[in-house]
Every structure is written in C-alpha cells, then in structure tokens.
C-alpha cells in the first residue's frame, strides 16, 4: 500500500511530539529523583560503572519491563477509549505497586507537574485530566502520546529512554561517573530497552509486578539517608 502524503506528515509530527516528550528539558522535575540509585551508590552496592550498568539493567528489565510498561499499555488503551473506570483502576493499581513512600511521592509529584504541563500546552486538556485524579507519570505520558499520535511501541521506547537517561544522569552526579561511561551504558541499554518493550506486550494482568526487593530496600533507606543530592 502506498504511503500517502498525509501519512508521512503524520509520521513527522508524531516523531516531533515524541522528541518533545523525551527531552530532559521537559519541565516535570524527574531529574530530582534517583529511585534508590543514590542509596545504592552511597552504601557501595554500586561502586563503578559496571555495577551501575547492572543496577540500571535489572531495574529496566524487571522494574519497568514488568510493571510500568504493561500498565502503560493498559492506560494508553484506556485513554484511547476514554474509559474513566479503566484509567482510574490502572492509575490506582500503579500507585498501589509503588514500593516505598519515596517512590509513591515521586510518582504523584512528577505526575502532577506533568498534568500542569498538559494544561500549559492546552487549557482544553482539563477535560482529559479530570478523568484521572492523582495522575501518575505513566498516565500523563500515555495521554501525551495519544494526543501526539505517537504509536504505542514508540511511546514506550521514548518513555523508557527518558528513564534510562535520567538514571545515568543520577549516577553521573552522585558517584560521580564520567561522560564516556555514561554514554557507554546508554549504548548498552538500547537492545535491553527494545527487548523489554517487546516483552511487556505479552504480560497478562496477573503477571504484572516488579518484585525488586533490593531496589525497594534502597529506596526506603534513601528516605533516611543522612545527606542526599536527590529528593525523597
């Protein structure tokens, strides 16, 4: 089937929307959180770039891949159908899964800044926002993807890429880790991101859940860490 000029224009627009959404400059404050990584660095669980990479890889595969990504897919679908009950169910489910006070607060605070960003783009989005009270980051990212005509697989690649970039930036600030190491980790994560996004499509509702005990412990103990660069 021939690609029409309209399709190509739509592709260009959705790519630009994805780049906009994936920019570390997106003013939602995600850079202020390390998701347990700062504690892992502080207590010596991760003491070099290889250990940082292995921490990020495990969180990506098991944390994002088995929790955020499958719920992202369900919320994307729920926004498509404007199903208020499904949106609220999955949003509440994701908050129920958040392993610690810190991870819960991060999701609520960054999610709320994301909702403000939506309103800054277009006041008319209040209609969508009112369908999903206490929005999570996943819910707001999925909404932006729907409104920007970004296909689901690409939306998830962008969401996960932003998360990875933020984790590497955290390690660079807290360890500190050099730029070359950081870039090497990002390069190594590309096939992992791709596989995790694909794998998340097959998960049933009763397979969702991260079970990352070490990350949950790190995030809980970060709440009491004596000196912190990142928010708790």
């Amino acid at each position: 089937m021939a690609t029409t000029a309209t399709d190509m224009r739509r592709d260009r627009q959705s790519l630009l929307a994805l780049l906009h959404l994936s920019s570390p400059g997106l003013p939602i404050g995600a850079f202020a959180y390390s998701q347990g990584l700062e504690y892992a660095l502080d207590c010596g669980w991760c003491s070099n770039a290889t250990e940082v990479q292995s921490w990020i890889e495990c969180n990506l595969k098991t944390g994002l891949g088995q929790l955020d990504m499958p719920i992202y897919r369900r919320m994307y679908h729920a926004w498509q159908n404007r199903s208020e009950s499904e949106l609220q169910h999955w949003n509440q489910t994701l908050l129920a899964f958040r392993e610690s006070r810190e991870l819960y607060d991060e999701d609520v605070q960054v999610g709320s800044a994301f909702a403000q960003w939506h309103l800054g783009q277009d006041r008319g989005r209040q209609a969508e926002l009112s369908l999903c009270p206490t929005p999570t980051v996943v819910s707001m990212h999925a909404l932006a993807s729907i409104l920007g005509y970004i296909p689901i697989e690409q939306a998830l690649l962008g969401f996960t890429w932003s998360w990875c970039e933020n984790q590497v930036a955290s390690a660079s600030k807290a360890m500190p880790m050099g730029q070359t190491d950081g870039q090497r980790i990002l390069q190594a994560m590309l096939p992992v991101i791709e596989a995790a996004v694909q794998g998340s499509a097959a998960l049933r509702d009763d397979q969702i859940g991260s079970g990352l005990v070490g990350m949950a412990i790190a995030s809980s103990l970060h709440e009491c860490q004596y000196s912190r660069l990142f928010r708790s």
Partner: protein
Amino acid sequence: MTSIPFLKKSQRRWLAEFTACFTAHDLEGQATATRLGATSHFGPLRVQRPFFPEGADLAHIYLLHPPGGLVGGDHLNIELEVQSSAKVLVTTPSAGKLYRNITDMSQGQTVSATIADGGVLEWLPQENILFDGATGELCSRIALYGTAIYSGWEIICLGRPEGEKPFRSGSLRQRLEITRDGSPLFIDQINFSADDAMLANRAGLADQRVTGAFVVTEDVLGNRELTAQIHAWQERINAGEAAGNPRGLVAVTQKPGVFVARLLTDKAEWARDRFQELWTQLRPAIVQRPACVPRIWRT
C-alpha cells in the same frame, strides 16, 4: 475490574480447603467477644479451637496442615471472613514446604480474607520454604472495608535451610493484593525462575535466600516517637551489616495508609526474629495492646 485468576482452573486441584467466619458479639458492659462462627474444610487443613490469651475480644487461631508440604498439583485454599469488630490473630505451627515439582501442574496456596469495618486480621505464619525444583504460586488477597486493619507478614525461603540444598531450578510467583472498599491499596508481586539474573542482582534478591515483607494497613509511622524508635531499630540492625557482620538488611517505609517493612537475609530464623521484634514495637499502635506471643512460637 475483573478479579485476577491466579491459577488456571484446569491446573488447580485443591488438596485441602478451609473457610472460617469470625463474628463479634457484645458482652455486658462495653466488651466484645470474637467467636469462631461457621467453618468448613476438606482435606488435611484445619484449626484447633481458638485461644483467648489476651481477652475474649481477640482470638488466636492456629492453622494446621499436618502433612506440612505440597507436591506438584497440590493447592491449599484458605478463606477467612472477619466480620465487623471481630479481631483475629492467625499463625501456623510450622513452616510451609513446597517440594520439588515433578508434574506439569502448579503447586501453591491461596489466601483470601475479607475484613469488615472495625475488624482486625493479624496474619503471622511461619515461613514458606521453596525446595529446589518447586514451582510455587502463593497468592494472598485481602479485601478491607471501612476501618478494617490487616497486619501480616510473609517470609519466603529459597532452598533448604542453611544452604544444604540450594534452589537451583524451579520458580516462584508470590502476590499480595490488598484493596480497601474495592480500590487497590497495596500490591506486591515477585516473579522469578531459578536462573533469573534478578536473584543475584543488588536491585533484586542480592544473592540472599530469604526475603519477607511485613505490611500493616495503617499510618503507623504517623506517630513521631514511634517513627524515631523504628528508625533507630532499623539503623542498629543495618549498622551490623555495614560493620561486616552480614546477617541481613531491613527497611521500613510508610506509604499513605500502608506501612511496609522488607528484609533480605540468609537465615529464616533471623527474618522471623526481626519481624517479631518489629511486631512487638508496632502492635500497641495497631491494636492498642502489647504483643502477646502465641504459645506455639515458644515450642
């Protein structure tokens, strides 16, 4: 949303089932009495008559599974209904065992509890041991209504005690799902097979064979004095770890309406002791009375 079918019907064969209902009755004055109402069971799963070591309003229940272990295809199904204002502490006399599974059917346990307004369930079982080759499915579903309280722990142990028989093959899926008035409140699910890299990763089980979570559906760390005490306890234990005395790690956190303590260690006994210490400190804030250790723990 629809409830989640944890096990496929075709794979399920109840080895034993136990259902019980706990009711509260007004006594003279302002006291209430909790009673064990209707029960039903089949297979080797039952309770002794309730004990009341701390007064008529809170029943201690020992859940007995005399064979003590599950092979492939075996499932235990436990359903508890705690009615309005009834208070129940449930424990088990010995560790649950999931043996090597040589069938293609799953093996495991499902606990479903419904707790009505004003009701309390303390769920304090011994650990579950996952033998090498086991494919365990452990699911707890707790439905709270109104001001109901759940305070419970689950400890899972990979392989035989003290590493005699490490967990080299098999899998585990363990899920805890708590709702309040139908809405998700807390969910925790761990999902792995024995060759999963997550088991050795610091973000996962960090090469430890015992992990557990103690969950209380209250703002127990809303109280500043208790928070300071619990944080000091946590720091003391983890300082032993940092000082090269590697016994285990504990971490507490307070989400809105849900307190969670997690631990990672190599010894089930250490995990039980730490959770019991925590329970002793928290119980006055949860059920307004000191810890009363079930007699069976001392034997």
